């Protein structure tokens, strides 16, 4: 397939393809981080994860509309504020959902699957009633559109770079929170041994709520970021949910590092194969490889070693 191309053309295409893989990687990290916290740390199968992401996207949409109408001069910077708002809105709803629903189901993990699936349907229909069934267009500030041309052929999309930066910051932030803060220590204690954690005076109910809210909040930020590259509609969240679970389960449910490694592996495999095969075949092969590896390592790539 490379007949008739000069070596410099090929080099630039490979550079671009590498960039495509990296930006897919950051998308996966963003999608999976929130779920890795909720599913991995709490064992809650949150089927409404995609809908929380879309809530973040709608928050961005509303913020952009607000800035256009009332503060057009500051429109260039609205996106950063939108991301903060998306985090707050989603985290608040997450805390509410945990209080109303999830906390009653900790002992019945499979029921959380059904309950959160129901929640996802409710949220989708709510979006449909509030924002209409049609997708909404989120307008981006001028500086986020377009690409930086490195050479004639190598052009790096600005929003791709932006997504990478957000993904990186969130990954670092979550790492610091989980492994370098008092809160993180408590979360890990609760995950490893709930009764013992309670015995030493950790408020496990409070930890649960905060953790669930955090996961949802991160989903909100992801949703805000995805307005740049994807669609914002009532059921757009469904497009992400399968990939998200794939990344988290493949990485090993309880390991955040595993999530990142698995996001990297899947994204590189997929984007390389997409280049040489057709899109659908690439997806099928990726799934086959993942299933194969999971059969050999049912716990995922990075299983947390704890005594049970």
């Amino acid at each position: 397939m490379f007949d008739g191309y000069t070596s410099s053309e090929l080099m630039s295409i490979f550079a671009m393809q590498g960039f495509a893989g990296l930006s897919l990687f950051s998308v996966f990290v963003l999608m999976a981080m929130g779920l890795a916290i909720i599913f991995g740390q709490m064992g809650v199968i949150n089927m409404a994860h995609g809908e929380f992401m879309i809530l973040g996207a709608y928050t961005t949409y509303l913020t952009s509309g607000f800035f256009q109408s009332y503060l057009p001069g500051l429109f260039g910077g609205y996106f950063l504020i939108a991301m903060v708002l998306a985090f707050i809105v989603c985290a608040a709803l997450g805390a509410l959902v945990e209080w109303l629903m999830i906390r009653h189901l900790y002992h019945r993990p499979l029921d959380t699957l059904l309950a959160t699936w129901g929640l996802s349907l409710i949220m989708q229909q709510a979006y449909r009633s509030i924002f209409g069934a049609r997708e909404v267009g989120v307008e981006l500030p001028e500086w986020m559109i377009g690409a930086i041309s490195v050479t004639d052929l190598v052009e790096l999309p600005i929003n791709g770079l932006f997504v990478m930066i957000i993904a990186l910051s969130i990954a670092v932030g979550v790492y610091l929170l989980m492994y370098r803060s008092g809160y993180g220590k408590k979360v890990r204690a609760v995950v490893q041994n709930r009764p013992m954690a309670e015995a030493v005076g950790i408020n496990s109910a409070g930890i649960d709520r905060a953790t669930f809210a955090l996961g949802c909040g991160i989903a909100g930020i992801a949703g805000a970021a995805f307005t740049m590259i994807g669609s914002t509609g009532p059921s757009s969240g469904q497009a992400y949910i399968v990939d998200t679970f794939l990344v988290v389960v493949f990485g090993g449910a309880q390991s955040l590092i595993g999530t990142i490694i698995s996001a990297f592996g899947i994204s590189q495999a997929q984007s390389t194969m997409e280049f040489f095969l057709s899109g659908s075949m690439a997806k099928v092969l990726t799934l086959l490889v993942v299933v194969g590896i999971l059969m050999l390592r049912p716990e995922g790539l990075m299983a947390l070693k704890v005594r049970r």
Partner: protein
Amino acid sequence: MGTTDIAARGRPFGKGTGFRKSLMTLAASVMLATSAHGATPATAEVNTTGLAVTDDTVTVGILHSITGTMALSEIGSVQAEKLAIDQINASGGVLGRQIEFVQEDGASDWPTFAEKSRKLLRQDNVAAIFGAWTSASRKAILPVIEQYNGMLYYPTFYEGLEQSPNVVYTGQEATQQILAGIDWAVEAKGAKTFYLLGSDYIWPRTSNKIARKHIDKLGLKVVGEEYYPLGHTQFNSVINKIKLKKPDVIFASVVGGSNVAFYKQMKAAGVDFTDEKPLLLTISVTEDEIRGIGGENVEGIYASMKYFQSLDNPNNKEFVAAFKEAYGDDMVIGDVTQAAYLGPWLWKAAVEKAGSFDIDEIRKEFAGIEFNKAPEGYVRIHENHHLWSKTRIGQAQLDGQYKVVYETEELMEPDPFPEGYQ
């Protein structure tokens, strides 16, 4: 899913009694007017098969998804069909009878479409069903509507390869849309190489098959053909492939949420469609879709369809004004919405020509039925139950509307089973 049973019964504006009253008066006066020509035909004459027809009403069914993934696309069709029904009622109804409708929700779930169409035909005895959007939902309805001998008016442009005696296809079948589009790209833009890109299901695959055959016939070259799963959101790899192959034309049939991702990422990758390098020709992005994608992301692309909201003719101006008055100024009207609007009108024309609501009587009359007031201009039903219609090329503008740059001189003949293209 499938438990949500949102059934609405009644006249389109059934809530306001004031409106209903004025409608009754209107109906009464129209009846007086028709009785001057001759009395409204007796129910026993016009309905020998037990349809829901009374002396002054006739009931039809509307069956689209108003919940679920497809609601996005199908709501425009529901609105158009209701508007047509309102207008027909205001002008005296069909054979002197006011149209009432029963609306059912297909909930984006194909078995639900089958179940609801059975309910409409068996329980409500509707005289016609306006509905379905995806090919999958039409295929689900097909055995039911054929078993109980109903009549479905199907609005979406689709892949062809079907011709049921119980369906009228008011959208274009694939060859009408594709052949004219490719011919235009070759003649007007000198295109020589094509890259075919679509979502991975029957419509894009069939469409690209037809496109490929046609491109081969013209002696030109397809340099790539790609399909991505429905809902796919990452198009960077294919964008790189396109950059590598440098085709003259990207022929795109990506649908749904993937559309938004594809065009946003093309734009982000530094592709400016107004340069027409490459030129993008789509058969799936209507004004409806542009609302979700954003005009700035598709400015400059070309679409090959039979209808654009910007069409400059008196019928269309009236239609657009009426649609906006009924549903709000910010509404946009895409190709399928217009085709859905044709459904009730064509049904009315067929019923009145046959002088009967009976399906078998109507069917005999379909071939040659014309509709002069169509927003797209003039349409005529072919004996294969598809419509003769013109194909137009529009170029997307920043404001989300298409500017018509070309239209076929003649009506394109519908050819659902194109020879040499299968």
